């Protein structure tokens, strides 16, 4: 009985897995000619990535609640529970092209001219304040942007392992702390 149940479970998982796949086997075969590393990215495409691919980044309304819930469940917090860390360290990460590259998409950095792919973050901390809710929102957007903006272009820094929870808390401090250069110095390009 237990075994039958397990088989059933395995089968339904399999069916779920198949339903979520974006590239089918003959397509994956062709993709393999692109080389091992390239193919691997598609072979191991995550189900949430597959959903965004299938729906071309606009999820139908009926899928949204479950999707958002799953994305939220991926968010982890720093060991010490503090969502605001060291703003100086955060600034180094925010302004590093290889590391987080936030400035490329967002205006507001006092170090680099920002892009306009994402909304301007100029004087973010002065505008939003430092309430618990703002800290949490900012931390969670950086940790997993898809929990707020499904399928958006912004990387899921925490959920995809690009930054640690502590590094994200440092960035939150960089954005929010009224003493941070981000809030005391003028943004490059500001009028």
């Amino acid at each position, binding site marked *: 009985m237990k075994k039958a149940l397990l088989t059933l479970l395995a089968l339904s998982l399999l069916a779920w897995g198949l339903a979520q796949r974006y590239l089918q086997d*003959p397509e994956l075969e*062709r993709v393999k000619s692109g*080389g091992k590393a*390239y193919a691997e990215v598609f072979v191991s*495409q995550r189900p949430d990535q597959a959903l*965004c691919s299938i729906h071309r980044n606009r999820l139908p309304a009926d899928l949204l609640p479950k999707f958002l819930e799953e994305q939220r469940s991926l968010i982890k917090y720093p060991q010490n529970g503090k969502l605001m860390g060291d703003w100086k360290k955060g600034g180094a990460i925010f302004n590093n092209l290889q590391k987080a590259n936030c400035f490329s*998409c967002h205006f507001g950095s006092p170090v680099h001219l920002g892009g306009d*792919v994402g909304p301007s973050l100029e004087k973010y901390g002065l505008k939003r304040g430092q309430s618990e809710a703002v800290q949490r929102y900012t931390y969670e957007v950086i940790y997993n942007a898809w929990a707020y903006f499904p399928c958006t*272009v912004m990387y899921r820094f925490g959920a995809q392992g690009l930054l640690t929870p502590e590094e994200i808390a440092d960035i939150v401090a960089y954005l929010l702390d009224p003493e941070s250069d981000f809030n005391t110095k003028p943004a490059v390009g500001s009028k």
Partner: protein
Amino acid sequence: MPLKALLMAGALALMGLALAQEGVDPREEAKRQKQLLLETAGILPTELIVEQGKDLFNRKGPSGKTMAECDFGLGKGVLEGAAARLPRYFLDTGKVEDLDSRIITCMTRVQGFKPAQVKRSEVVAVAFYIASHSTGKPIQVRLLFPEERALYALGEKLFYARSGARDVGCATCHVTYVGKRAGVLPYADVLGKDKSWTHWPAYRYSNDQIWTMQDRIRACYGNIAHPQPDLYSLPILALELFLAYSNNGAVVEEWPAFVR
């Protein structure tokens, strides 16, 4: 090679200028830079590469044949308008080939070079030369053969795919955020009004590089740390067929192009 040194001096001078020119329309700016380079160096890098490509085209391979013995889609030795109709399916190889891969087919199957002897720089130079015969021609690619349709469908899927640690997808930049910038250049509308297929092969003056569309696509992956598909591989061809077909009818202003 001394020509290259000459050009480098010009290119370096331009780079200083280019960096000071943020916020200017990149296409207009490229035209200005081209004019400047023409005035300082007396010849354009694109023209030089086309000349190199011409020499290579007329060079005899181990079999004693030149590239004029090859069919680039419109018959043996016919170059006029040939590049504007690629990629396409070729009966002799049973494959869809773009300009780059067809050049390799020519060098290996007709001229008798071993695959390992084929240098990338030579392929690009010959691509520049052959493409130069399609200036003023409209893009005309078809989806007639099953393999063309299969690759097109794959290209479309890859274009809309999200993958890798940064959830990369061509469409996120080139559809959703067209006109926005995360650097100097705004994201081009590659499927529509920017007619991007007609901008490659090109000389990139900001980096002194000669690129075909294969290099352009690989760079878009590489720029955001996504593993790159190998040169000449099917995923590149698939994306190319999708891009080219989307730009059908667009007239090639100048091949090879001169871009930032």
